[in-house]
């Protein structure tokens, strides 16, 4: 096993482990913090795949913004007993069904991925990924880019309207 593989294994362990923690933890704050770790693990995987810029975007948006938003929201809507804030569904049937479904999904999807011959090609390490991205964003994908901008505007307007609530009379 070379260094790359070892790092991959480590990152995979961190990512999956913390993701499992997110769904397993009974304390929603712990879940949220483990979620940050998951995000960082995924960011690590991006670095591992020479996608440094995306990795940093991941850290900034997921780690620095989304997680904080989530934790913030959690603290605003907190129950008194943190240990019981993130209990799974009370119905055992639903949980078993969930496990069954997910295992099935993973096996089926995993098998189909494993047995597929992918059109692999080791692309040259792209030294200037950001320029390429910028060219794509403002070139071929300018429509998507502009729409994404509007999407963010919509989200901001919507979040303010919803979080602010109805006018008090």
């Amino acid at each position, binding site marked *: 096993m070379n260094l790359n593989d070892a790092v991959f294994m480590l990152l995979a362990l961190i990512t999956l482990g913390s993701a499992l923690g997110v769904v397993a933890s009974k304390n929603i704050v712990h879940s949220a913090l483990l979620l940050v770790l998951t995000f960082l693990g995924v960011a690590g995987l991006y670095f591992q795949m020479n996608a440094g810029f995306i990795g940093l975007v991941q850290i900034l948006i997921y780690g620095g913004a989304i997680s904080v938003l989530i934790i913030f929201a959690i603290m605003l809507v907190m129950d008194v007993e943190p240990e019981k804030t993130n209990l799974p569904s009370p119905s055992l049937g639903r949980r078993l069904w969930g496990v069954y479904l997910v295992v099935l999904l993973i096996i089926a999807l995993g098998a189909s991925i494993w047995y597929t011959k992918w059109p692999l090609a080791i692309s040259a390490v792209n030294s200037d990924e950001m320029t390429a991205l910028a060219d794509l964003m403002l070139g071929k994908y300018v429509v998507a880019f502009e729409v994404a901008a509007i999407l963010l505007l*919509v989200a901001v307007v919507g979040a303010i309207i919803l979080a602010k609530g109805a006018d008090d009379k």
Partner: protein
Amino acid sequence: MNYSLLAPEMLIALTGLLLLISGLILAGRGQRLVGIISVVLLVAVLLLVVVRFSESAVFFNGVYQVDTFANFFKALFLIAAVLVMLSAGKYTQRFEQKQSEFYALMVFATLGMMVMAAAGDLITIYIGLELMTVSFYILTAYLLNDEASSEAGLKYLILGAISSAILLFGMSLLFALSGTTVISEIAGQVSRQPALIAGIILMIVGFGFKIAAVPFHMWAPDIYQGAPIPVTTYLAVGSKAAAFAALLRIFMIALPPGQFNWSLVLAILAAITIIVGNLIALNQTNVKRMLAYSSIAQAGYILAGLVAANAYGLKGVLFYAMLYVFCNTGAFAVATAVETDTGSTDRVAFNALGKRSPMLAAIMTVCLLSLAGIPPMAGFAGKFYLFSGAIQAGYLWLAFIGLLMSMISVYYYLLVAKAMYIGESDREDIIDIKLPARFALWVCLLATILIGVYPAPLSNLAQTAIQMFL
């Protein structure tokens, strides 16, 4: 590349921004103007789309396409938006100072749909889809003091996000196999591999959520019931049509049915959707919820057209989507009027509508019958196309189920008619309908009947729009 062909999208985006800004300027009673402004602007854009209907262009190597298919759907979304806004006039007054944002969000949702219909690339489709759904999340929860509305919004958001994730996973597999996200290039690149099956299934599941096909439908009734009615209308009509537009483009061009056998999966999905949607609708007492289940069933019918994947079927999809705009908007507009008047959409609220407002009752009846596919309403012609396609493609059983269930569906539609015409109500006063809503209702009524009696023009339009798939 003739960028002026992107004018409709740009103008819609500007309209939305203008509405947001006008919300700052037009405070207080001025908010009422916002509705008028948005309708006028949307009609202008609609005219632009119609005038330049047959002009087409491919932008950025196929990433974005302006063609008759896209234009057909753009016109559809704009018509739906205008009708909804017209019929919503009185209802939106309860949003008080947030009317301009309401209209702006509707406009942005329309933009998302338009982008979805015209996108020739997975990324752009996804972004358009998300603009549409995020706008709808907010709109669904727009009744800020109403618990049901917030609840509906949250449920929609959660299920919408899940379905987006599933859809994306499917797209990523397709992307991985073909090495491209441009739909027109995928067809030549993709090979038959196990992962392709997984990808197709995941995408079907993802889109299944968006069009509320059974068994991915559970969100629809709740959301339709909880959301403000104009939003429900637009959701049922517009977002569904947009999802179908994207579905058609991806499945017909990237995965041509001649090479990849996805039609059986969709056929089963369509059959289950039709059956379950109609059967559950049978014992609904809330008209909004009944219409929600019926719209699930309608999605099943439309899906049958895609299953057929031939001229009749695809034409049927477009044809049906368009007529669905009119009859569903009509039905919901009546429901809006009733809810504004009585505060409820239970079936009993429709009692004696035939006396209180014969026009509303007649329009409701006509629209519901169109949904059921009874001639001479438009729904019949639409179903004729859809199921002709299905039979031509060898799916006789699907046509059989579809037609049988659509006749059974008459039962619950007629229950509403019954309530309207022989139901007893202690209120005898005439329901007051504002002029714009009246206009929208008449448009729905006339269009529903006209398309039903003389479907040729619309069917020709649909024919030109689907030419590229054949």
